[in-house]
Every structure is written in structure tokens, then in C-alpha cells.
């Protein structure tokens, strides 16, 4: 417990993510304009919006996989705009992927070992990991090749890989996409655990509105390249313009 407190303190000192007036264009195609958001350690922020609203692009920019066209990103006060992907990961901004994404021919254990090693993690990550593996039914499958796991477990492994790097800011790209009802509650469980264990903030891009309502005290709606609304889900999701933007899409699964 002291360790968790310690982690939380450290994160409070340097873990705040601030995204200022980010815009992105691909050639002539505008993805979005003027996006602002702040994530303090421990925050959980939901990002929703119809397909093509730029949600994944936003994650790609924050994690350093893409450079923004304009705007700046700060982590703990330090500017990190367009730093390389691996550097941002080392600094604690780590993302998960929409599709299942593991080292396919490696075992579950090897996958996690790589995540711990590549992130320069210490051995005590394993104690927390072992507990999570047990919770997600992966403990007894540790020696199985990761691409032989059922879809849902591959997705959970993807989340655990991000967790294994002990992130300060966790970016989750549709963590529940393709999961069944019972598996979805594991995402809740995972997010709560990550926040409690690591003191990290979490940004979740998701189409599952129930999950968003359960997990996120605050959400942002992206639509047609701008931030349409921001606030508590109950309030934002009852707004007329948000419902209009989402008509026919609000309970749609899978991008």
C-alpha cells in the first residue's frame, strides 16, 4: 500500500498531461482542430465520437506515433510534442491498441517480460502482474503462445502489456471492442486497478456507452474535427447536439 501511495505521489509531481490546441491534417484532409484536454494523475477521461471523428488519431498524437500539425503537448510541465514514440513510452505515456496486438509467437509470459524489460521496469512489477493475470484468467495460460489465446484474452494481454510498463498516462484505444458482456467488466476492473496501483491517469476511447458511464467522471465528445462537448457523461450524453452527432452510431460496436 505504501508503494501505491508512493507511486501516486510521484505521479502527482510529474504526471500531468496537458494537450493544448492540437490540430491534425493529413495533406488537405483535416482530422481535427483545436483540441484541448488535461489529465491529472488519477483522472479517467472518456473520449467518444462517431467513427472517423479522430479519436485514434488523437491517441496516436499523444503517444508520439504521429506529430500534430499544430499545438503542443506537455507532460508534467515539460513539452513533449512530437517526441519519438519510444521516448514518450519511456516517459510514461503508454497506449494500447484497438486490434489485438501482442508478440504473436511469444508466450504470454515472454510478452510481459518484454514489456517489463523494454520499459526498463523493475522486478516488483511482477508481483502486481501476477495478481492481474489471475484475475483475468491468464495465470494458467502463461506458457501458451499469445496468438493461440481466445480473442478476449488477447485483448486483455494487450492491456496488461501497457500496464507492465508502469505508465503515468495510459491511453486505451477501444479496450472493450469485440468483447462479450462478461469480459467487458474486466476492462473496468483493469482500469480501476491500473489507477490504484500506478496512480496513473487513463484516457479511454470507447464506443460502449455503458462502460464510459461506469468508468469516466468526465468525457469529451469529438465530432467532425472538433470538440463538441465536455463534462460529466450524464450531462453531456443528454445534450441534443451530442445525440444528433451520434444518431445511429451511439450503440454501434467496432470501428
Amino acid at each position, binding site marked *: 500500500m505504501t508503494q501505491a501511495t508512493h507511486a501516486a505521489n510521484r505521479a502527482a509531481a510529474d504526471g500531468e498531461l496537458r494537450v493544448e490546441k492540437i490540430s491534425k491534417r493529413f495533406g488537405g484532409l483535416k482530422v481535427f482542430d483545436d483540441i484541448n484536454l488535461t489529465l491529472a494523475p488519477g483522472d479517467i477521461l472518456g473520449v467518444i465520437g462517431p467513427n472517423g471523428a479522430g479519436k485514434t488519431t488523437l491517441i496516436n498524437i499523444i*503517444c508520439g506515433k504521429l506529430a500534430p500539425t499544430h499545438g503542443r503537448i506537455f507532460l508534467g510541465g515539460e513539452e513533449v510534442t512530437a517526441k519519438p*514514440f519510444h521516448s514518450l513510452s519511456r516517459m510514461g505515456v503508454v497506449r494500447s491498441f484497438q*486490434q489485438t496486438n501482442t508478440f504473436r509467437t511469444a508466450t504470454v*509470459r515472454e510478452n510481459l517480460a518484454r*514489456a517489463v524489460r523494454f520499459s*526498463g521496469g523493475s522486478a516488483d512489477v*511482477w508481483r502486481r502482474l*501476477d495478481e492481474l493475470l489471475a484475475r483475468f484468467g491468464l495465470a494458467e495460460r502463461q506458457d501458451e503462445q499469445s496468438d493461440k489465446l481466445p480473442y478476449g484474452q488477447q485483448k486483455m494481454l494487450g492491456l496488461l502489456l*501497457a500496464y507492465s510498463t508502469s505508465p503515468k498516462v495510459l491511453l486505451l484505444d477501444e479496450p472493450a471492442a469485440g468483447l462479450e458482456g462478461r469480459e467487458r467488466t474486466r476492462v473496468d476492473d483493469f482500469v480501476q486497478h491500473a489507477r490504484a496501483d500506478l496512480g496513473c491517469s487513463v484516457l479511454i476511447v470507447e464506443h460502449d456507452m455503458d462502460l464510459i458511464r461506469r468508468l469516466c467522471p468526465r468525457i469529451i465528445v469529438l465530432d467532425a474535427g472538433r470538440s463538441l462537448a465536455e463534462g460529466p457523461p450524464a450531462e453531456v450524453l443528454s445534450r441534443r447536439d451530442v445525440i444528433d452527432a451520434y444518431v445511429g452510431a451511439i450503440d454501434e460496436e467496432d470501428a
Partner: protein
Amino acid sequence: MERTAPRVGKPGPGEIASVVVLALAFAVPFISESPLVYSITNQILIAITAAFSVYIMLRMDLLTFAVPSFMAIGGYTVALAALKGGVTDTLLLAALAFSVPALVALPLGALVLRLRGVYFVLVTFVLTEIVQLLLFETPGLTGGSNGLVGMPATTLFGLSLADNRAVLFVAAGLALAAALITAGVTSYFRQHFAAIEENEVLAQSLGLVVWRYKVLGFVVAAGLAGLAGFSLVNMLLTAHPTSFSPISSVNYIGYTIIGGRSSMLGPIVGSTLLVWATNIFAIRGEYSQGLFGVLIIVVVLLARGGLLGAVRSLLLWVQTVRARASGTAPTSSPTVAPKSSPTTRVAP
């Protein structure tokens, strides 16, 4: 009970077997005195040394055509050191043959390996042509189209290594050194290289500085090619541009892929069989590349794991059939089955 991460630096059976096999090459001069056997063994050892260069890069799913370029740099370095510098000590020459190409590869790799894999392949291809051009167009240094001839025999601790047998010892020693370096690097960085090969984007997202490992691999691969260049120049006592023709890069790729890219034994098996076949069937040089090209296509289409992979699959199949006949399931899952599908790419 705390389980620890898989260890980084432990050589596997493939690496150990490869080193042992190459150590056995030292026995050839004691078994045979036939000049033909010596000549073929020499060629095989040089081919293996060069094929390791391809093998290291393939560990990270990178194809390199640059092997003849770095062989040339290593070979010419040795020839110049011997002819102009009077250096004949084998160990010193080997150190030069490794380090000069490695030093050339360092800035080149740092520049190119941040780009996507395709561009790297292109650059290595262009490099072979550039090196050829330089060899022909700088006669003052490289002797131009005459090459550098009349190299003195190398020495070891003052002992002359002039006769056929001694030349074979040098080739075996260089191949063994190359095997030890390859085994060391690929087993120490096994998890890193495998992660890059399978899923570069995921590896980066977890904090791995991918390009640095690629550069490291490239530098070592260049050094190994340099050793092969030394071996070749030492056998011919001549450094000539035609020994390092751009098209010969296909041979080294062929040895590795046809033998099997998933284990260090692959390049050994591939080099041995193909060099031997080329000699026995007296295939003329210019046809052998065509033959290797066809064989590479066959391997890629039918047996991704190469000869080694095909043998493994066959053994597994026999095992399964036997197990089924005796009514018991095989004890272990087929973890050595040849790997097939390409890396998952992540859509932006």
C-alpha cells in the same frame, strides 16, 4: 513463488550446435589432403561467414543486399594493410577486417535504419553498386580493374600460414569467430530482435528504441561480412572487384533463406549444400544465381522455414503419426513449427 523474466543471454541448442559444427571444420585438413576438398571447404566456410551477416539482419526481419559491399571493404582493408602497411598478422588483420566495415556501417545504419524496412533494403542494394564503382574508379588505392595482387601470406605469432592447409585453418578460424559473434549477439538480444521481427510498433510502444538495435545488428553484420571478405581475399591472395559483385548478394541471401532463417544452423546447412552443389554440378557462376533465385521462390512459397524448417515439420509429422498409431497424443505441442504469417501492422 516469484517467477523471473526469461533470461536475456542464454544461447540455445541451435547456436551451440552451430559453433560445434564450425569447430569441426578444423578437422578437415587432418582427414583429407585433396585440393578439391580444401577448395570446396574453403568456399563453404566463406559462404557461411557471409551468410551469418544476412542471418543477423533477418532476425529483425530486415533483408540486406550489402553483404558483398562490406566483404569488399573488409577484403580490401586487409589487402591494403598487407601490401602497403606490411601487416601480415592474422589476428590483427581479422580485427581490421571486422572493424573497418563495422565503422562504415555505423553512420550509414544510424541514418537509414530509422526509415521503414523497404528503404533499408533499397539502400543496401544501391550500396553494392556504389562500392563496385568506387573499386573500379579509384585505381590509385584499389588497383582499379586489376585489383590488388601479390598479397603476402598471413602469419600467426610469426608463423607463416602459406600452404593450402594453413589457408583452410584461417578460413575455419574466421568462420568460427563469426559463429561465436553471431551466437553471442543473437542470443543476448534474442527477445529484442524477436520483438522487432514480430511487431515493431508494439515494441516501440513499450519503450524499445528499435532503431538502435537495428543499427547494432547492422554494424555486427557488416563486421561479419568483413571477416568473410578477409577469408576470400586470403584464399585468392588477390582483392578484385569481381569477387564482390552486387549480384553475389543473392547467393548469401539464398544460402540463408534456403537453409532456413529461423536458426543459425540454417545458413550453415544452406551454404554447405548450395556451394557443394554448385561445385559438383559444375554450375557456372552466372547460372547459380538464377538457380538460387528459383530456389528462394520455391522456399518462400512452399517451405517458409527453408530446408531446416521442412525437416522439422517432417519430424513433427512423423512423431504425430507415430503417436496416433500408438494411441497416445504427442507430449509436447509443436512449438518449432515454421512460422508463417507476417507481422501484424497496426492501422493508424
